[in-house]
């Protein structure tokens, strides 16, 4: 039985010296078979398991994770949530995600530390201003909050930017999505894990799925490091490693894996209370609750499965940061890392059937998987439970690459990759 977290439970445990907190989720041995097996215990896998149990009553579910939950891209992103997309299909999907995020702490009884501090996208040229007017107006037409900003508006929101007359990247204006912001990434994984576990989902950590047993009618079992597990349906939610599992299933994907790096500075006093993105500088930055500046940029532009990131890209990102904020030049960087992301040509996710009956795909999130976790899980659970696409994700199938009906958000992802 899940212990509800509340002020009263906190006070009660404090009086007992915090020695009696129960485990947040079980560590069960796998059963011989499940109705649904989800491969990958990141945000998408765990959210899928939760919504399968919660929305569809499918509770004989296991999530297999080769490492620890949330240890892949869920724990490696820059924690930004937003729905400032250009096309109606993406806008609907990502705004559903943001709306779920807005209620998630209450829904999961777990504080995901959502901070809707807004995201300011900077315009440094006349072209940027025109493009952003189109972008911000498209968002409004799609029912998503957006405000155009003048140079003075930006100066009020982000006073530390370089406003000198000879600034390399002059700030001419920009636009903001006020409902965008950040959330604690680990808490999203932990909150979904705890809530899914309470509904009966088995979360099996340190257990790698190495292959599949496929019969004439489709998938029958998954081969794991703990033995063969029978399955009804399988959902793959393994981001940058999707092509590796696809190969064991005998097909290839329109996916290329790249390293996407991020870094944090030493902690400093509060000076930035919004997320700032500059497409021209190729970086974005926010300040965490601990005071660290959290900085992200573009991809390392060659194929990689290494969770490291290369030095030239790190240098480029830092150079972009201090071009925007000259006063950051004395800061020391505390940590740098990378996640392996699954990039597709149109920067729109793949949520749909795979060529193998009974195996379903959740991948192609590229550089923006974190913000999509609630809606990704919501729609993937619908697909796994009903064997049909959720209305929010009908255009996201693999078949779009053959039909040509791409949803080309590549330009709208904010950073030019």
């Amino acid at each position, binding site marked *: 039985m899940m212990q509800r977290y509340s002020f009263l439970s906190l006070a009660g445990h404090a009086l007992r010296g915090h020695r009696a907190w129960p485990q947040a989720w079980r560590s069960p041995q796998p059963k011989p078979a499940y109705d649904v097996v989800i491969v990958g215990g990141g945000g998408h896998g765990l959210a899928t398991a939760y919504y399968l149990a919660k929305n569809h009553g499918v509770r004989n579910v296991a999530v297999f994770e080769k490492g620890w939950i949330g240890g892949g891209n869920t724990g490696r992103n820059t924690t930004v949530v937003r729905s400032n997309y250009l096309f109606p299909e993406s806008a609907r999907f990502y705004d559903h995600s943001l709306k779920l995020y807005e209620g998630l702490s209450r829904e999961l009884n777990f504080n995901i530390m959502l901070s809707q501090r807004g995201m300011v996208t900077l315009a440094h040229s006349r072209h940027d201003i025109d493009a952003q007017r189109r972008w911000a107006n498209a968002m409004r037409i799609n029912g998503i909050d957006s405000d155009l900003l003048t140079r003075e508006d930006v100066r009020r929101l982000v006073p530390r930017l370089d406003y000198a007359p000879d600034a390399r990247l002059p700030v001419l204006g920009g636009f903001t999505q006020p409902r965008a912001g950040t959330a604690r990434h680990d808490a999203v994984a932990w909150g979904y894990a705890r809530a899914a576990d309470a509904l009966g989902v088995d979360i099996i950590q340190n257990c790698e799925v190495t292959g599949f047993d496929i019969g004439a009618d489709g998938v029958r079992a998954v081969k794991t490091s703990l033995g063969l597990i029978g399955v009804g349906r399988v959902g793959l939610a393994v981001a940058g490693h999707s092509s590796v599992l696809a190969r064991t299933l005998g097909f290839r*994907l329109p996916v290329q*894996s790249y390293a996407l790096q991020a870094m944090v500075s030493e902690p400093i006093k509060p000076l930035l209370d919004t997320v700032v993105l500059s497409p021209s500088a190729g970086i974005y930055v926010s300040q965490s609750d601990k005071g660290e500046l959290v900085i992200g940029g573009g991809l390392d532009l*060659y*194929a990689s*499965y290494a969770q490291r990131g290369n030095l030239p890209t790190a240098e480029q990102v830092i150079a972009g940061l201090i071009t925007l904020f000259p006063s950051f030049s004395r800061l020391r960087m505390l940590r740098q890392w990378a996640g392996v992301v699954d990039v597709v040509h149109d920067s729109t996710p793949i949520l749909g059937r795979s060529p193998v009956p009974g195996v379903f795909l959740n991948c192609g999130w590229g550089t923006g998987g974190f913000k999509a976790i609630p809606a990704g899980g919501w729609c993937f659970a619908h697909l796994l439970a009903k064997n049909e696409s959720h209305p929010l994700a009908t255009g996201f199938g693999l078949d779009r*690459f053959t039909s040509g009906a791409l949803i080309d958000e590549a330009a709208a992802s904010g950073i030019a990759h």
Partner: protein
Amino acid sequence: MLSLTCPHCGPRDETEFSCGGESHIERPGVEASDETWADYLFVRDNPRGVTFERWHHRFGCGAWFNVARDTVSHEIKTVYPMGAPRPTTP
């Protein structure tokens, strides 16, 4: 930082190069089916391990060449000319 060996200029830093993606992809004929065309345009091997890819000495001599590289260690196994068959690597 990778050090790539350009066939013309010798070893140089990766910042002089740009990666042109997976090599040995042949353009299908105009009569190709939608599936074949999608395969050609979008579908990739994307291996975890040795990959075969094209590189361009963009800020150098401008030559294109092929590289066999490990996508986990980033170790460069071999460099070989455009048009040459896929080498067997250890």
